[in-house]
């Protein structure tokens, strides 16, 4: 007979104290493995110079300082092109790519999820197939196509392909199917709204978690995009690329590298923390039916 006990006025079934302890133990081990490197970067970035070159290296800071972040700004100010240019590039590419992806993918997602027309299944199948391979496989032929458009070494070579990212479309289509009832759309149509208006005014507000998730997926990729092989002018390169030069340069240990890493990682982490519940909600419908 299954053991039963109550916790918080809810019936908790099939839970033994030993099992709980085991799970907590496993979770802590994995947790330390995941968390330790992140923690180490942050500690490194706060260490003053004498602590950085201490043997053996300490896992904590005695005299925390923001000097490394100051050094980072000094390093930034004597970069090849003004550092603000790198930041502008990243912001510009991220905004254009994300908005483009949001507009195109959500229109397509609505059409695939809620409208019925010949070919819609085939289109969706092909999109699902594209999730099955890593996009870098296409890198070589991408180059040929981009050069045919003469887009090599322009912003377009990064922005336009990113608008056709399939992950966001997939998540949004799945979410629309489960959370936008057909009856609501039907009565909007009866009220004389055009299909496009129905999409914009009825469906879109209902899938806010999905478009947040889509934007974050896209943001994550673009923010973390380093040196693209399609861009070689220094003034078109991204913040990530410039920071990476600092991190991988011979001064990695000097603390500025750690400071740079902290700056780079804090942005996506903050974005995720602010939207965690919405993202999880969207992921609830991410399943793939066979």
């Amino acid at each position, binding site marked *: 007979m299954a053991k039963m006990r109550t916790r918080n006025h809810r019936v908790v079934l099939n839970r033994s104290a030993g099992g*709980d302890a085991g799970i907590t133990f496993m979770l802590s081990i994995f947790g330390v493995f995941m968390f330790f490197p992140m923690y180490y970067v942050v500690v490194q970035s706060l260490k003053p110079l004498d602590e950085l070159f201490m043997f053996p290296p300490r896992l904590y800071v005695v005299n925390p300082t923001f000097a490394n972040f100051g050094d980072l700004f000094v390093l930034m100010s004597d970069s090849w092109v003004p550092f603000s240019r790198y930041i502008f590039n990243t912001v510009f590419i991220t905004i254009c790519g994300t908005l483009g992806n949001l507009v195109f993918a959500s229109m397509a997602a609505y059409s695939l999820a809620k409208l019925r027309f010949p070919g819609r299944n085939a289109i969706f199948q092909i999109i699902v197939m594209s999730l*099955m391979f890593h996009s870098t496989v296409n890198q*070589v*032929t991408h180059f040929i196509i981009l050069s045919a458009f003469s887009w090599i070494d322009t912003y377009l070579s990064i922005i336009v392909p990113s608008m056709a990212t399939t992950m966001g479309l997939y998540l949004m289509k799945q979410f629309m199917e489960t959370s936008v009832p057909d009856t609501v759309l039907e009565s909007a149509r009866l009220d004389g*709204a055009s299909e496009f208006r129905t999409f914009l005014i009825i469906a879109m507000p209902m899938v806010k978690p999905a478009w947040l998730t889509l934007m974050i997926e896209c943001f994550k990729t673009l923010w973390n995009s380093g040196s693209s092989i399609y861009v070689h002018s220094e003034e078109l390169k991204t913040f990530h690329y410039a920071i990476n030069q600092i991190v991988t340069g011979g001064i990695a240990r000097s603390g500025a590298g750690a400071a740079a890493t902290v700056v780079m990682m804090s942005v996506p982490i903050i974005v*995720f923390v602010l939207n965690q519940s919405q993202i999880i909600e969207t992921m*609830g419908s991410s399943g793939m039916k066979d």
Partner: protein
Amino acid sequence: MSEELQSDVLNDVKNAEAPVAEETPVAAEAEAEVKLPDYVEHEPRPEMTKWQWTWNEIKKNKTAYFMVAPFLLLFIVFTVIPVFLSILLSFTDFNMLQMPHWKGVSNYARLFLDDEIFLLACKNTLIFACITGPVSYILSLLIAWFINELPPKLRAVVTLVFYAPSISGQVYLVWKTLFSSDSYGWVNATLINLGLTSEAILWFEDAQYVMGLCIVVALWTSLGTAFLSFIAGFQTIDRSMYEAAAVDGIKNRWQELWYITLPTMRPQLMFGAVLSITNSFGFGAVVTNLCGFPSVDYAAHTIMHHLDDYGGQRYEIGYASAIAVILFIIMFASNILIKKALSKVGE
């Protein structure tokens, strides 16, 4: 204006649903049960040719096509065409400068008969993928399952701890600091302190460590979208199912996981598997950034690196395309195999 319309619509729904449900509850239920077919094909009328009929269908659904078109166009140009172009070019000797010449299967013959580094890369890729793929998949699932037992606030924090490495870009470079090849690296310093080694180990320059380290780092960054999908999947499962199961004789949480949780989550498992496979073959950049290119003695040289070498640096596009095609085939084959295996979960 927009809000007006929305509230109008919501009212309409309420008004429309209520009376129907009262009058013919059985009929309404039955109607809801019937799953609409993907598309009802009307018989083409005899006086119309097939093309006219197709054209009519397109005209009838023009909004739908109009809304898919922009995305589809970009998708075709940047994903579908590149795949077919790769296949086509893999039979030629294209080098970006001269017109391509047809060479039959000689690129493939060269790959498997003449290119020892490619065979080494194949071996490395398979080792890499066969470890990182399943381990990261099972780890994602187990950790998501553990996390699901936590109270909501703690759950959010723990989720962040596990998910953060995968979204933080190149933060994995910190492993290079930890495993730095001089005695200032934390790992070397600790080993020296404990007396386990007398001099610093050259972690990323030693062929016997490179592969293992890259696998560890790859695993560290691998709790990504699939992991979130699992967490969400666990949360959507109806608790009453567990209560019913306990009555039916499910004895412990492992049985619960196998007989109830996993079968209910099969769609998520499928999605996670696809992403894990994709990622496990795509760790090329991680390896390059950690060990340089080429890695020492090609110890961590993968097919992805080989592709980059011939496509991005030597401009032997024909040959590089053949490599890409092989990689495609491997990825699709593993997807199909895994899908077959997953359909057996909980049976």
